[in-house]
């Protein structure tokens, strides 16, 4: 179907003053914010109630791995910004090359996460060990799922960009990727750093 699909005139209109694709992406981000927002608020409420017990559990998360992942994800966002700049200048090939770096760093993030999960489960902190760990695996798992989906979409966008097609999508996937980044910026202190009282 997609090869014969002609976008309607409506898609090219910009009554609100910004491109439809960017506007749509912002609404996607808005709806995602409340999903993670609900989860994070629920966690904070429980964290306050279980102060000491959960602080002790949080000691067992791997701070250095989380810090490394923060660095990896922020660097991947840097390449997404560079790709946007290249796409603005009309250089699809360069944008695609930079997006591939973003994807690779996303892969590194997931590998580090996999290592963390494995070693924590082996140490006896599986998803059912304590409610803290249930939250840990739900929140980081949901976030990891978003990283994975983002990598797949980045792949499609990079493939098009290499041919010079749909360059406006580089910016949209960039917005989404930054959002995934920012979610991690919230998860990292909540689950890794806040291990004291």
């Amino acid at each position, binding site marked *: *179907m*997609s090869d*014969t*699909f*002609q*976008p*309607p*005139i*409506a*898609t090219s*209109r*910009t*009554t*609100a003053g*910004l491109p*439809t694709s960017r*506007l*749509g992406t912002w*609404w*996607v981000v*808005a*709806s*995602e*914010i*409340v*999903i*993670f*927002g*609900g*989860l994070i*608020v*629920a966690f904070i*409420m*429980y964290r306050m109630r*279980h102060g000491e*017990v959960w602080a002790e559990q949080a000691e067992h998360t791997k701070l250095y791995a989380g810090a490394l992942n923060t660095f990896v994800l922020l660097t991947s966002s840097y390449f997404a910004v560079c790709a946007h700049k290249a796409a603005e200048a009309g250089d699809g090939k360069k944008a695609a090359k930079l997006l591939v770096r973003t994807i690779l760093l996303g892969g590194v993030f997931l590998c580090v996460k996999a290592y963390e999960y494995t070693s924590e489960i082996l140490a006896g902190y599986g*998803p*059912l060990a*304590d*409610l803290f760990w*249930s*939250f840990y695996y*739900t929140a980081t798992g*949901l976030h990891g799922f978003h990283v994975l989906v983002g990598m797949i979409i980045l792949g499609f966008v990079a493939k098009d960009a290499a041919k010079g097609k749909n360059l406006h999508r580089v910016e949209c996937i960039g917005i989404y990727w930054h959002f995934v980044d920012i979610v991690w910026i919230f998860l990292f202190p909540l689950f890794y750093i806040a291990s004291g009282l």
Partner: protein
Amino acid sequence: MTEATIDPTSPKAPTIGSRIRICLFSTDHKVIAFQYLITGLLMAIIGGYMAYVFRMQLAFPGEDVPGFGWVSPGHYNALVTNHGTIMIFWVAMPVLVAAAGNFLIPLMIGCDDMVFPRLNRLSFQIFFLSALVLIASLHVSGGGFGGAWTAYPPLSSDPDFNLTPLGASLWLIAVALEFVAFLIGGINFVTTTMNARAPGMSLMRIPIVVWMIVIASILFMVSVGPLIAGAVMLLSDQLAGTAFYDPHNGGDPLLWQHLFWFFGHPEVYVVLLPAMGIVADIIPVFARKKFFGYKAALYVTIATGVLSFFVWAHHQFVAGIDPRMAHLFTATTLLISIPIAELCFLYIATLFGGSIEFRTPMLWAIAFLVEFLLGGVTGIYLGASATDINFHDTYFVVAHFHYTFFPIAIIGLFAGIYHWFPKAVGRHLNETWGKIHFWGTIVSFNFVFIPMFFLGLGGQHRRIFDYRHFPDLAGEGFQDMRVIATIATCVLIAFQIPFVINFFHSIWKGKKAEQNPWKATTLEWSAASPPPHGNWKTLPTVYRGPYEYGSPDSEEDYLPQHIEPNT
């Protein structure tokens, strides 16, 4: 319907193959609206059948129900639960938000389709899948989920308590899929209205129904996120054995109640606003008068939307929340009745001094005002914590929310169908049968739910399968009222048969409708009936507000939005 929606790029006349392709893969907003409508109406038949079965059980306990057989307690719980779930998530949402939004938004703001037509298609496909999952959940071993549509843990989270391990999880997955479908659809509605308006369609010239559907979509988007997170937690409690809602292991069942009602109360306004919008667009047409207080209506709608996020805990007055919090939520709940009352006053002010024509759409619109008023007024008793503690979980609550949801989902829906049917299909519905359908529905509806107010005041609890086990509630007067309500339910369902016949007869054999049969001013009436794919040959330009009736600038009594002013 089908001829008009053939893709103009396909050179051939419609064949069976192309018709099937349209059904499965069309991206045309009118086809998708029609699919949402038909799916919603089919689900309404299932939901209505469930109501018939459990009403019969209440009136004639222990006897075989014709068309179902003997009702076990497990059946009864599953029927009540899924009646509620279906009527809200698979009837009110698809017909009022998705069908009305898909059909009206592009036509009313003057563009050829939604801005993301393929996402629109995806939204319907996910919705349809969710309906199939829900129907499947009724037929798995252990039976359908019976823990009420609010699904409070621990009843919903632990299979040892609800006895429906498969049914409960499938129910939850179906609801979550439905949320995803409407999130995608809502993003499309909001983006389309923001970015694809016709030249000249400034914010203050958008018809009220479009405003209300957009505000409803934003409310849904903002409120449903925490519940999606909550549903993930509930699902992992059910399937993986985590303890998010299990107080023995550090969880808290109240968390679900907060997440559910943080969504659940805005959800009331998500379905109310489109229905209010449909009525707001019908009244000026048949009163031949400009809508009274357009800006006031817009601002109070926004106020309602904002306030609706601060009232949720009035569902939890007896759940052990802090009494100080109960005071706060009583105040906000009573506050939110002010903007809604203001809207009703604006509708009445529009009617005042108009030259009112009692055509079928107008009858439904006025009935909406009258019946919703009863629902709103009885809500005051339930919003105040002092009285709610007494009424909680009685039939008073059941009667109250049916007096709000029935006008919204059924009366509002029929008002919309009778009003826009000539535009969507190009033929008129039969007026006489429409009026028979109207009076039969309205009169029997009141006979169903007025007795329930009295049953609730008498102390009848909501979730009891057989009242013979409770001597206080099984008395003569009580049982008589239950029988009246049940007979009225059967009459109400029977009076939908004329509508179904009228609907299908009129699609093929109805009187041909011209382009603007009601002499209305909004943009959709300037397209052909039915509108072709792409809606207009040249997209319209807008010169004035949406409700210019009785304008001195025109020879007739109305001035459509797209007519160029002759200066």
